[in-house]
């Protein structure tokens, strides 16, 4: 197999991490194909493989298309729920049963004694996945790949892993414009700058229970709001020129922000601190207005996207123009882009 320079560089970069997640914009954006490609390309590493939540079914339930399975080599560590694990055609040596329960049984740490197709469904929570990664490392895994399983709008995986590869494709949108814009928006949100350490510290110390906190020049007001949704009035009414930061925990929606943008709230004198880029659910128009008005988001943890894998084939069989997607993305961002279907 010969790889392009872009991919060789990407693979080399992956070697510098201990954990990598594969996340997808939507179902059928080629996550498993990307994972299989990585498993094949990564040499001289004891791989650990798990997923967050349940793996996709054998066949896509709507379109009946065959979904690829994860093919692993001998000596690979996996963490998977018992039922899935026993359905694999790999011979697994059972190493440990973890105290993490899922609808498909406890999570098992196992090592493949033969190569073959594995079914992986991992823990469904962030903490569970952290434990799972630790357990695989205990048994010698030095590079753990986390499959983002079903697509979801709130990812937990990129926050647990050192780096992520984002899978996009025709399954998300058959309109190149929409696909590229959505991807750029995500990359933009994920790469929001991290707050200064002392601000992060203040956030961590005060936001254990709170959802909303106002930091002024010389005082702090903790909101009693149970959710940040629908708290635009409270945010607006707490504005003053002494307000330095607004700490928000949880999702930030478009409607919340439109209310703020349409009020006397001067966003240019305040920094909004959020957990991470996955919590932003703004459309690009509102976000541009926010930036134009001098607004600024900072986060606690930046999400490190090191590559974008494109699956130009839609489930209905329609092919998007990969070259067009690639050049549009490359003109805006400096992240390696590759076509997952060409990597066999």
């Amino acid at each position, binding site marked *: 197999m010969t790889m392009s320079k872009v991919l060789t560089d990407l693979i080399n970069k992956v070697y510098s991490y201990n954990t990598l997640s594969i996340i997808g914009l939507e179902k059928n954006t080629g996550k498993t194909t990307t994972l299989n490609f990585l498993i094949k390309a990564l040499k001289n590493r004891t791989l650990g493989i798990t997923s967050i939540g349940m793996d996709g079914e054998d066949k896509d339930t709507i379109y009946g298309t065959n979904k690829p399975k994860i093919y692993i080599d001998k000596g690979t560590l996996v963490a998977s729920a*018992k039922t899935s694990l*026993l359905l694999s055609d790999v011979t697994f040596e059972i190493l440990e049963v973890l105290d993490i329960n899922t609808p498909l049984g406890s999570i098992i740490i196992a090592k493949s004694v*033969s190569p*073959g197709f594995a079914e992986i469904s991992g823990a469904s929570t962030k903490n569970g996945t952290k434990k799972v990664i630790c357990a695989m490392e205990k048994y010698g895994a030095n590079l753990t790949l986390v499959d983002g399983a079903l697509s979801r709008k709130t990812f937990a995986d990129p926050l647990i892993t050192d780096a992520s590869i984002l899978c996009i494709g025709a399954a998300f949108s058959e309109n190149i414009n929409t696909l590229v814009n959505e991807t750029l928006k995500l990359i933009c949100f994920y790469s929001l700058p991290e707050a200064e350490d002392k601000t992060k510290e203040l956030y961590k110390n005060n936001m254990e229970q709170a959802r909303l906190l106002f930091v002024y020049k010389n005082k702090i007001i903790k909101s009693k709001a149970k959710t940040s949704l629908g708290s635009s009035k409270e945010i607006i009414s707490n504005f003053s020129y002494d307000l330095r930061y607004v700490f928000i925990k949880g999702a930030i929606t478009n409607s919340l922000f439109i209310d703020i943008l349409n009020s006397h709230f001067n966003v240019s004198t305040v920094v909004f601190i959020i957990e991470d880029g996955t919590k932003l659910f703004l459309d690009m128009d509102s976000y541009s207005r926010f930036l134009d008005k001098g607004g600024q988001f900072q986060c606690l943890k930046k999400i490190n996207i090191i590559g974008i894998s494109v699956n130009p084939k839609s489930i209905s069989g329609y092919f998007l123009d990969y070259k067009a997607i690639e050049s549009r993305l490359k003109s805006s961002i400096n992240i390696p882009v590759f076509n997952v279907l060409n990597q066999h």
Partner: protein
Amino acid sequence: MIDLDKKSLEKIGFFNILDSMCISTVFGHSLIYNLKQITDINTLSTEYDNIEKCITKVRNDKFYNNFTDLLGRFRDIRNTFIKCSLGEVLDEVELYEIKNFTLLSMELKQIYENSNLLLTGITLFDLSAVYKKLNPHKSETNSFYIYNDYSQFLIKVRSKKASIDKLLFKEKDLNKQNELLRERASMINEEKSEEFKIRKMLSSEILKYTEKLLDFTSNIGKLDILFSKAKLAIDYDMCRPIARSKNTIRMKNGVHPIIKNEVTKRGGIFYPISIEVSLGSSVITGANMGGKTVILSVIALNCILASLGFFSFAKTFEFFPFDFIYFLYEDSSSPQTGLSSFGSEIVQVKKALEKLKYENGILLIDEFARGTNPEEGSNLTKALVSYLNKFSSVSVLTTHYDGVCTLAKKHYQVKGLKNIDFTALKTSYTSDENYLKIINNLMDYTLEKMDKDAVVPRDALNICSLIGIDSEIIKIAEKMYTGRQKNEKQTES
């Protein structure tokens, strides 16, 4: 468990004690809340012997930590054992768990035997035969899969599958690839069915041991409980109880660890309680706030624990294996009955008296008939005390009523505020002081054995005056006191 309602056990602080124990295993946890009362003196004695043996081991930090850590590593796979005993075929993960269990069991057995503990009632079966079945290799492992060693056929199928795998990834032609995939699929079917046969064979081998495996889990639980009883005994400096057939309770320096802890936290001192009561009724009198209820709680707690094979919270403790124990205290009646507090108290006493007629037990009653008018209350208490003397059960009552103690077999009194000079005290404190705290500090909680006809102390008035209730009330009350004393003298002469 013990035949006493949950609310009373809570009041006594029994569950607090259980909760504070260092139980390491799920098997221990399922036993601790279902401990059986031991009514045989010899069985009690062997249980205390067991604890004594464990105590020496618990004092050895290294041994204790290793041992409890090992116990904690056993997973609860009783359901797998049961599944196996019903003839079901176990899967790889279940076989792995059994392998791990047996490996740990061998380790535990070895440590236990090396320790020379020789605890009565603990038998750790040798399960190495099960382990050997699941570990066909010579080298010791705790992981598991269906090893090639189990069948020649399996080796054949697996190597065939491996060669197809090699071809499959070299093959570029899609048709040929599909052909190979089909071939691979049939190999996998053969592999799986061979694996099933092996799992079936292993399951039926393990089936022979399921009883021993289950028995092992309950022995882990028993060991766990014994060690946590021993740990408790060390932590609280508990004593080995002495069980006798004679219906007597003799306690020297008994304490209630939970109450003691609270009192010490408040900055107070918990006075250990020494008391001896035997068949018939004994009465405890004493000042208000003198801790009479605590005394009953300590007696109840130690009796219950000792009968469940625990050591006692005391310097020495003697008791007898009782058939029942009743603890009647304020609020012990359930409000749902719709009876007044007096009414429900009587219902409770009636129940206890029924038992008393046929069985040997312990009856602890806190301030009987406090809810009715003092004259009737006093008469009723006197009647109850003399009635209780007829039975071989041990009854202890606390009361404020005069004249009750004369009818009891024994009379104890809380020293209370007896030796305090109140007039001097009153002037030396300002009214801003926290009088409750002063009273707590001055109160002598120790019990002293009194003559049957000793008078009930009159500390209530002193306490009122210390707390600073309106002095007019005190004056009127004092007049009544002296008036009554004069009357009494006149009738005497």
